[in-house]
């Protein structure tokens, strides 16, 4: 190799490095390398690339159908010099290109086509040289995965903030959901104290008000019916709630624009300091909110082009902010005809038939229910 080539080679590498400062993940295709104004001639370029590749400063990758090259830093390239056998180079190359995703041992084996023994030996040697390390991915705990020793596994393989030691941290998620829920409840509803409800009446009303739980019940029971008791509105009023909370949360007026958005909730979580060790990004908070939406605890509200969140069935929810969505008294459960009849939850419902082995007359669930 003459001096000029070696000079050009260094220039090319420098030019690439320069381009990388703007976009660190970039790969270079042949045209892009030509465009760096170092060499104009494809043949010349080839002459440069071959030695660069040999020195492991360029790593070839398949890119959009053609070959492209990824730059490797000199420190990284130097590690290849530590490798003593050809096998090691091949294996290390695969693990190196896999990057933070890591490479599965079976994949490596298939690609280098080595004997089990040879592969294990190569991996062992690489590990003792502290070039690679074994780790597990959350996607498949039983897979043997290898990664370069000096980088951390990607968020996909560790599962992001929701995983602790490859296991989904359900307790953590639950606590965070509670925090999100309380933020949404707190900022998207109006806390009304019980005394306001039963207390003053609007002066418009000449009659005794029959609105809330206790009063209306008394009114129904009293022998003498007032004129209101005749009114149609009684149809609408449903039985008073079984559990009466002292205070109740009320919906806010239409057109309210301060329902918490994802950003606000993210900030709120940060403030609350629940997730100190594990800073949560907005997209993670969004995941939490989505789950709450799917759980039917929270709903989206459009405020112009922003999206806020508010709690559903706000008046039926426990007004306390500390109650967690999975707890019993989170809200008054809903029911309908089919959920309350024994048949609705009968495991042998399909078999049930008049005259069959299971039938309504001899049904033990009915026995319990009617007892």
């Amino acid at each position, binding site marked *: 190799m003459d001096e000029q080539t070696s000079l050009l080679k260094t220039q090319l590498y420098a030019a690439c490095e320069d381009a990388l400062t703007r976009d660190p993940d970039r790969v270079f295709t042949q045209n892009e390398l030509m465009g760096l104004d170092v060499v104009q001639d494809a043949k010349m370029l080839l002459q440069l690339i071959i030695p660069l590749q040999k020195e492991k400063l360029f790593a070839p990758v398949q890119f959009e159908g053609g070959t492209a090259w990824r730059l490797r830093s000199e420190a990284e390239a130097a590690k290849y010099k530590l490798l003593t056998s050809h096998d090691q180079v091949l294996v290390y190359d695969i693990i190196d290109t896999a990057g933070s995703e890591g490479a599965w041992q079976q994949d490596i084996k298939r690609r280098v086509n080595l004997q089990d023994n040879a592969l294990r030996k190569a991996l062992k040697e690489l590990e003792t040289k502290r070039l690679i390390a074994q780790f597990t991915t959350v996607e498949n705990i039983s897979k043997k995965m290898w990664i370069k020793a000096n980088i951390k596994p990607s968020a996909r393989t560790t599962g992001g903030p929701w995983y602790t030691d490859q296991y989904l941290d*359900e307790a953590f*998620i639950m606590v965070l959901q509670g925090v999100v829920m309380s933020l949404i409840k707190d900022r998207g*509803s*109006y*806390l009304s104290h019980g005394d306001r*409800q039963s207390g*003053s009446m*609007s*002066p*418009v*009303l*000449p*009659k005794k008000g*029959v*609105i809330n739980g206790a009063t209306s019940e008394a009114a129904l029971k009293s022998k003498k*019916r007032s004129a209101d008791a*005749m*009114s*149609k*509105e*009684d*149809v*609408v*009023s*449903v*039985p008073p709630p079984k559990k009466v909370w002292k205070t109740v949360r*009320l*919906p806010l*007026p*239409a*057109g*309210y*624009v301060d329902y918490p958005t994802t950003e606000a909730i993210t900030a709120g979580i940060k403030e609350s300091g629940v997730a100190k060790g594990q800073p949560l990004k907005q997209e993670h908070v969004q*995941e939490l909110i*989505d789950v709450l939406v*799917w*759980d*039917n605890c929270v709903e*989206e*509200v459009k405020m*112009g082009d922003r999206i806020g969140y508010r709690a559903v*069935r*706000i*008046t039926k929810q426990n007004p306390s902010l500390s109650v967690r*969505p999975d707890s019993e008294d989170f809200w008054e459960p*809903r*029911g*309908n*005809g*089919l*959920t309350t*009849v024994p*048949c*609705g939850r009968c495991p042998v*419902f399909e078999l049930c038939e008049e005259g069959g082995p299971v*039938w*309504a007359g001899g*049904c033990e669930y*009915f026995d319990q229910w*009617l007892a």
Partner: protein
Amino acid sequence: MLGTKSAAELCVLLIDELYGQLPSRVFAALLARGRSNVGKLVQQSSLNPKQVRHGLVVLIQQNLIFYHTDPDAPHSLYEANPSAAYNLVRVGKILDMVENQYGRTAKLLVHDVILLGQIEIAELVRHYKHEHCAQKKDSDGEVEAGHNGINGDDHTNPNHINGNGTASSATEDEYAEPEDEEVYDILAQLIASGFIESVTASTFQSPEDLRTGVEQEVMKDFPNGLRGAKQTNEFDTMVMDELKSIHGERTALKRKLQDRLDYEPNIKRRKLTNCGWANGFVATGGGSLLDEEFDTMIRLNHDKCIVELRNQKLAEHVEDIIGDTTAQVYGALLRALSKKISRCRVSGILSNEEADFLEPRVSTDDVFEHLSPSVDVSFGIGTASEDTIDIRYAEKIRRDPPQLQDPSFQDGLQEGDVVVASDDEYDETGELTNGAAVNGSRRGSKPGQNGTKVKGEDGGPLSSQRLRQMRQHLLILAESKQQFVRHCGAGQWTVDFGPLLQRVRFIELDTMIEESFGRQGLRLTRILREKGKIDDKTLPTMALMRKPDVHVKMAEMEMAGFLDVQEVPRDNNRAANRTMFFWFFDEERTLRRILDSTYKSMVRCLERLEVERRRRKNVLSVTERRDVQGKEKDMLRSDVYSEWLEFLEVEKKLLGQIGRMDDLVAILRDY
């Protein structure tokens, strides 16, 4: 519309429950065989012809079957009307509802109409007086007992399940006997509002027969058959016109009364409750109209009743989702609106005629009018500072109804909302024009600032303040995710029942899934509904659940028939590990299945009731004795008496539950 085995069983059991075994056996035979004549029914039911005829008479009297007599054929054909049979389960609810809206006399009238099936007006009034005025207590007790049963609404409060049993006995004493005139007046109201309809010969023909008959009649005008599109169109319009005129015949009396009576039962009712029965409506005198109609046959119109029951159910949902006060306002709105609605679902035959009824609207004042003065509209909404309220969103007007989407895209409803070009339009004035000029200048502070705190602050007339507060409830309803109302123009409100009911159906579905499979089950199915088909591997990440947990849940739900899975092999071997599994949720099928399960559960409740009756046969045979009835406590030995009470408890529970399940059926099928 029915068509499943459980539904048929249910109809038969209901008839058995109310009208005894003979009609129910004939009805069962009719359901099993389809249209048949008496001879076929005899073969099928192993009854003798005389018995079959007896049964048929009962069924016709109760409007439970159609019949068709072809002048050329020797025998009449009979056909079951399963929806009428199913409606028997709603009798109690309808009575309750009528009592709430029109008072006790109206309830008793409707009760008699139901009991008698169909009756001439004069005869009805005679019967009414005979039954309820003279020897009220005795005969009434027995008759009602039959109906009481089905009467459960979904109040679990025991007093309520048997609406007119224990609770009403107290009021019965105070209840003044109405004058003749009043009975006619109330009857006129009921007919005008559509609860009771007149019976014509065509009512007994099934809709198909009616149509075929009309078509044959019209066909005579086309002796050469139909050629080309033009003639077909002509033919169709002629058929349609003919059907319309038949329908017009049926509703003639109603319209006549409506015109003359000005149809204001609500105002009148208010007057009634305030002034007592005696002098309530001297002036209105709608009853006198009925003088010419003494021989008109009348019966209960279930279509209209269902509309009213739907109003109740929707208001209950609002109570659940938003709050009590808002539900009352919504109830008022629905009452105002439903005057213009005669049935829940527009039937195919009459679609043209009813097209103008498709989008009835009410004005804010109208709603206000219907709102009971006892509702304090200042409750139920929180307060927020002015600068957090944007009137442009609050008062947004949507002129066009959202498209009712294919159920398989259902969740699109939530995102899409089809907010069309009119997006920026909003009711700027907040309807202050009909408020008062006094506070017109303070427009900025109106919306939102309406908790009790603001009370009296701006010194306007109280009623205009109340109106404004009520509007806030309407705006909340319009803004809600379920879109209970649509603000369709300045001061105009409407309800898009189709899409709304679809959402209510999904609420029920969600309730059921949550109840059976927990929150996580609900989460998974809702993900599937929103995203469509999802493969095994992505689901746990989205749901933030552990993979094995997801698999267990999914398998559980698949076993129960809520989920389906599709296999897509990646290669020809179809090995399990080389196959992708996509989960999906077939909403329509699931809803159909739930409907059928509900029928089946209702059947089981009725069967159980029968078993319980048999179990306590000796007690019941005593209480059925005439001399014991009404004085059970004194006549029975204490242990027998307590056993009887126990049985009543069981009966109440079962029948109440049937009523609740009927609510579900109504949502899934009728509303």
